[in-house]
């Protein structure tokens, strides 16, 4: 077998990693390299250092340690039955690439995942070694995200959390039956048990717990996340969001990432070979946001669409409002925060601005227009000092009026 060049390995193992949507480099502890004289910092918010033409941010060097894998998950480019070209990095190669890229300000840090080789423990041990070498040998203080191999030994998870900012375990598919169908070697309850274990470790290190004598050992300060593939199986949006809400509440996840299933080279014949459902993915992110920050629950959000699916034509909040017009108009000068948050076109910042400005004077429609990004969307759903929407709220053509007109495909 001819040895691959480092550049060729990079091409293969970055290509293999691109189906993982997570790129966040935010939410970790504040630290820098002023004292250590090494390199690296994390200051709360992450930085996107570049964007690929797919519109996705490039923040972390996202790599697989290897794309050899003993599992045969139908949706995965690295499944053992695929004829994709295989490669494997050494620990030092990943460490060197990370440092070279970081020193040129290309990246915020490393996101390392891996196919399963030999055993879950062996694979996890290799990944942990990359993180440990970066931290201990090179005094690297940048961001590290490690993928957790569900069955790996608890000691390895504990060490992973010591070096990494974030850990993640992918739930992969929204229902257990789909996962068993597409990923015969994965056990849904093993994946959830891994998340439960991480939550246990995270709880131990949360400062507001009862004071213990010893300062708790550091554990993944940016918490844990997961990813669900959308559109590979037949699950509807209701199933996806129900799963997500269950995960948020059970394991204190920072994020659930939704990844529209993309056709992959040498795909299994059991999968939809069509362009990825990008709009559906986008709507799921919006719905996820509304559930986490706007006080909506899953049945409410899903009720905006039809048959368990979100409305692809308009955003989920507008879809909900259009079906619940009796709740509108909301008076911007009097309504409380919870109600304002339900107005289409008013975000959290917009609502905060409305609440602070109305202390000074009664808000007119023009005032509201200055406080929000899209007054057209807001107008039918609010009353202001000089404005009531009258019949507009109940206008049968309202949905049509507020739906963006389809644009011509973009030429470049």
């Amino acid at each position, binding site marked *: 077998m001819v040895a691959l060049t*480092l*550049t060729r390995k*990079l091409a*293969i193992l*970055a290509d293999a990693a*691109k*189906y993982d949507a997570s790129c966040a480099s935010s939410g970790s502890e504040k630290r*820098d*390299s*002023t004292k*250590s*004289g090494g*390199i690296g*910092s994390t*200051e709360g918010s992450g930085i*996107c*250092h*570049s964007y*690929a*033409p*797919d*519109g*996705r*941010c490039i923040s972390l060097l996202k790599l697989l340690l290897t794309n050899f894998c*003993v599992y045969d998950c139908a949706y995965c480019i690295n499944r053992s*039955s695929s*004829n994709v070209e295989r490669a494997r990095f050494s620990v030092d190669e990943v460490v060197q*690439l990370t440092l070279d*890229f970081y*020193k*040129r*300000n*290309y990246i915020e840090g490393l996101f390392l995942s891996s196919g399963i080789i030999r055993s879950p423990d062996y694979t996890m041990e290799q990944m942990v070694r990359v993180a440990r070498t970066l931290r201990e040998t090179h005094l690297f203080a940048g961001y590290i995200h490690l993928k957790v191999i569900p069955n790996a030994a608890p000691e390895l998870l504990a060490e992973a959390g010591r070096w990494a900012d974030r850990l993640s375990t992918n739930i992969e598919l929204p229902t257990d039956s789909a996962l068993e169908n597409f990923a*015969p*070697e994965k056990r849904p*309850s093993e994946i*959830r*048990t891994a*998340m*439960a274990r991480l939550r*246990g470790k995270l709880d131990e290190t949360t400062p507001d717990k009862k004071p213990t004598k010893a300062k708790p050992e550091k554990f993944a300060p940016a918490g844990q996340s997961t990813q669900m593939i959308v559109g590979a199986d037949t699950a509807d949006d209701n199933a996806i969001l129900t*799963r997500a809400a*269950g995960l*948020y*509440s*059970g394991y204190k996840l920072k994020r659930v990432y939704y990844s529209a299933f*993309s*056709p992959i080279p040498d*795909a299994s*014949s059991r999968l939809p*070979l*069509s362009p*990825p459902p*990008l709009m559906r993915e986008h709507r799921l992110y919006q719905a996820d946001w509304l559930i*986490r920050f706007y006080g909506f*629950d*899953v049945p409410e959000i899903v009720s905006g669409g039809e048959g368990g699916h979100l409305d692809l034509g308009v955003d989920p909040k507008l879809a909900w409002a259009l079906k619940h017009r009796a709740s509108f108009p909301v008076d911007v000068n009097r309504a409380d925060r919870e109600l304002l948050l339900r107005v289409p076109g008013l975000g959290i910042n917009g609502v905060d601005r409305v609440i*602070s400005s109305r202390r000074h004077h009664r808000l007119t429609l023009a005032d509201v227009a*200055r406080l929000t990004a899209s007054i057209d969307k807001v107008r039918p759903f609010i009353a202001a000092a000089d404005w009531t929407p009258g019949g507009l709220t109940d206008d049968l053509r309202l949905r049509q009026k507020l739906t963006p007109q389809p644009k011509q495909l973009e030429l*470049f």
Partner: protein
Amino acid sequence: MLSVRLERLNDFDEWRGKARRLLVAGMKPSQLVWRVGSEESGLFEAGDDMLPQADGPIGSVPRQFIDLAASVIQHSDPERFAVLYRMLWRLQQDSQLLANAADADTVMLTKWASGVRRDAHKLKAFVRFRAIDDRYVAWFEPEHYTLEATAPFFTRRFAGMVWGIVTPYASAFWDKENLRFGPGGTKKDVPSEDAVEDDWQTYYASIFNPARLKVAMMKSEMPVKYWRNLPEAQLIQPLIRNARQMEQDMIDRATTQPPARHLRQKAREMPEETHDIQSLSDAAEAIGGCRRCSLYEQATQPVFGEGPQDAEVMFIGEQPGDQEDLAGRPFVGPAGQVFDEVIEKVGIDRSRVYVTNAVKHFKFVPRGKRRIHQRPDSGEIQACKFWLNLEREFVKPKIVVALGARAAQSLIGKAVSISKMRGEPIELEDGAVLYITNHPSYLLRIPDVEGRARERAKFAADLELVRDHMALLRQH
């Protein structure tokens, strides 16, 4: 008209010094023209040399204004000094002006501040260092005058590196100890290439997913004006041109024969079939694959019973809670702690009892970051009876204690009233004796201290009967 001259483009302290003196002199905003550097004065403008030299604090302004002004001063709009002074002037009358997000000056300043914030952010994001030996140098063209205020970010991040950033209007250098600023420069001041850029371009091309082309999104986050200094940007056009073809190739490529390596790999064994269950530990393993009702879909894992296989007494709760679900063990949460306290006090040896639940998966509804317990329904209780029966068969307890109405229902097949049935043992078909009492979580839910103490005493009294019964069995 009075012409106010500033030496530097973005020095907040310099502007503040001038502004204080102007305010002391009572100069109205409309009387002033602000000039910076060598910018020429208008024909009818007077110099500001005549202003009072008093440079002390004048009245107070909100902290928010200071922060806003320190940011806005870096903006490239020539009007920034004038609008800041006008805001300072107006704040003397209305100190709450900045809270009025609908005021035109507030809107303008806020917009400029966010422009500066965005530019500083792009500086942090899009600087690309090139290495010469052990030094790292970058050329960057910011939209505003953001280098000085942003440079400390780079010293914190690259403390152990010697680096420099050159922009058209200023430059910054770090030698691992000191941060210095110098004059502006040109692109020629930095190396034209770096060997690592080839790998970076390889990475950029490989991480791109041609099936997800979203050019507008990329351009809004990485505006075209930055592209000329980004080594990866020269790949953008060819990647976009080939994207549709690459996607089609992926779709067209039929599935090929799996490699031999795959065929050698043995799929992992499926969970044990239930007809192989010969012991308690077989059952504990087989339950991992339980699909008898839908609760497995949301729960972390099944929670099987725990305790010695020859236990005389089996306690049966309703279902695992949040903590039990996470840990995979019964009675480890708050209700389990109450249970432990009471049986210890009553004098039952915890290590000699078997504890389990009528339903083995946690049932809940998500509420934000918490999971709210839901009662299992009769169907779920019925479905899970399979596992409870196995536990009873293998352990053969002489005494069974139902904790709560649901557990009792599972055992005798009908709804029960605890208050009517507690303290009265019932004989089950297999000869075991059933005691019924409250679930310990019931004690936790009673709000008043008195009521809680009363119910706890009743609970303890029920368990005393169990203790006495156990002692009786041992005498035989």
